């Protein structure tokens, strides 16, 4: 990739301690526009913790997160989202009582221009914004084949579709970097294949950078350009899929020494 460009997402010496436990240390990554990166590692390696630091859920005890070169130290989660980092969760977190389309619309909220007065008086601006939101939400849902379920409660969707809805919701925040935390967890092979299709579609369509956490190595091997491997919070390898697959340290980590 264009190495002279500023990376969309960059971390410098990112690390965090929980009490005495060093969950992640010296985590450095640079992701460029349009790139699909993999982050793998055994259970408990610290992958989700990295995501939590990249989205302001946890405040890192050391290091910085930079988006397009701008540091995001001390910002809150919604400010990370406003800056352009969106994520999904390992254990799906949808707004279960709300309808599928509302789940997506919630993510538009930060960009909606109308104010309380517009909403109270139902001005033209209000209707226009709401109509645009509905259209955009339906468009997103159709990418994931969810348009027929738009009015159903999100919690009534089967597992695989809930995963997709969560990605659709993340996309609705109009982000530059998308963080996917084990999106294929608990899916059968057909669902996984479908999901990978979706990921490729959105990548081509939106030209965003994606960082994908996966527990299952074989899956990332097929889709990611570069892969980073962490174990016990420490980076043990970073490179092309074939390099990773033959790296003895990675093999050792996965086989459990």
């Amino acid at each position, binding site marked *: 990739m264009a190495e002279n460009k500023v990376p969309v997402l960059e971390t410098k010496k990112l690390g965090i301690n929980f009490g005495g436990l060093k969950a992640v240390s010296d985590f450095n990554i640079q992701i460029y526009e349009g790139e699909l990166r993999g982050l793998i590692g055994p259970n408990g390696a610290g992958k989700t913790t990295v995501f939590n630091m990249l*989205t302001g*859920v946890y405040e890192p005890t050391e290091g910085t997160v930079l988006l397009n070169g701008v540091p995001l130290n001390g910002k*809150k*989660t*919604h400010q990370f*989202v*406003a800056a352009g980092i*969106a*994520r999904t*969760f390992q254990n799906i*977190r*949808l*707004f*279960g*009582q*709300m309808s599928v389309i*509302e*789940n997506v*619309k*919630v*993510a*538009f*909220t*930060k*960009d*909606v221009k*109308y104010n*309380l007065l517009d*909403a*109270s*008086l*139902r001005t033209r601006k*209000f*209707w226009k914004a*709401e*109509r645009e939101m509905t259209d955009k939400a339906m468009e997103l849902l159709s990418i994931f084949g969810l348009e027929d379920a738009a009015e159903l409660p999100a919690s009534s969707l089967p597992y695989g579709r809930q995963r997709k809805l969560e990605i659709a*919701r*993340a996309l*609705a*925040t109009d982000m530059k970097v998308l963080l996917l935390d084990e999106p294929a967890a608990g899916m059968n092979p057909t669902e996984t294949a479908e999901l990978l299709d979706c990921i490729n579609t959105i990548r081509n369509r939106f030209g965003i950078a994606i960082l994908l956490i996966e527990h299952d190595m074989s899956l990332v091997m097929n889709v990611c350009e570069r892969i980073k491997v962490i174990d016990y919070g420490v980076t043990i390898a970073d490179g092309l899929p074939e390099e990773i697959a033959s790296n003895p340290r990675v093999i050792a980590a996965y086989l459990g020494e």
Partner: protein
Amino acid sequence: MKNNKTARSYLVNTLVIAAAFILFQVLTGLFGSEGDFKLVLVPSLWQCCYLILLAASLNLVLGFLGQLSLGHCGFMAIGAYTAALISLACERAGVFTDKAGLVYILIIFGCIIAAGLLAAVTGLLVGIPALRLKGDYLAIITLGFGMIIVNVINNLPFCGQDGLSQGSAAASLYKTGLGFGSKAKVTYLWIALVVTILCLTLMFMFVRSKYGRAIRAIKDDEIAASASGINVSSYKVLTFTYSAFFAGVAGALYACANSSLSTSSFAFTNAGILNSTFVVVMVVLGGMGSLTGSIVAAVIMFFVNYQIANGSWVAALPPFLNGVFKYPMLVYAVVLVIVIIFRPRGIFGTYEFSLTRLPEDVKKARARRAAAKAERKEAVSHG
């Protein structure tokens, strides 16, 4: 297509409300000066109006945002005292001399708006620190703030025990100021109705906009909401403030409907209807997340309260049962327990009653019931 539907439902609602309002005005004109209408029905309607506003506004915080606040009556107290004091000041300054005419009506509306605004400002000031807490902690701190507000009012020289609450000022609230007598209550009932309808409309518009979506999302999952770009704390404070505004308006209506104010009526220990737990019972009964549910529940709880206080059957009960009704809070607690056991999500749940969707909803409910019945039959035949 969908837009047409919305427009149609707005039109239908407006027409029905307008028709009901006109019908009511005609009835008032016909029976206004007569016994029960004047002495029972109209005061009851005043009470229902402010109870509805209280329940619906707390529902924004409790039902839609999902935060337990126990200090709602504090905001109502602020509204009541603001309205009463402003009206008194106007009267003493000679802005109006008799309780009639356009100027007087304008002052009433001015008082109501001022009451809402001051309550909202207090809501903002309380909400900013309090809403950092969650769950039981938030409940306790709002309970505390509610008590503090009432105590502060009580100790202000011009509205506490030496001021509005007792002594000459209380009497003058009735004779002058706001404080309607039973005749004025009939004459100005339309104000209570119009204000209630307007406020409910505003709350509906709030709930059915990006604000409503955002706060329901926060209720469902705060972390997911902030990961979707929602500024959780500012939406919480906004909702709390907005809700306090309507509690203040409810307080102003209360000030109109009562000849004197006493801070003890807003205190947490008050056994009557104006304490924050009673408001919580109304919201839970109606359904957390249903404004129409709050309206229905407010009317029901008004009846329960009215029967406890005035029902002749209560006196006819055997003494050991009768005694229970001396402690209305006990009855409300029983009501709450019954609701939780038999209908944990309240009467309406999150369902909103809608005139235009009624046929559709009835059909759906029938289908659901039939399906449930069929399922039970199936289970029986298999078992």
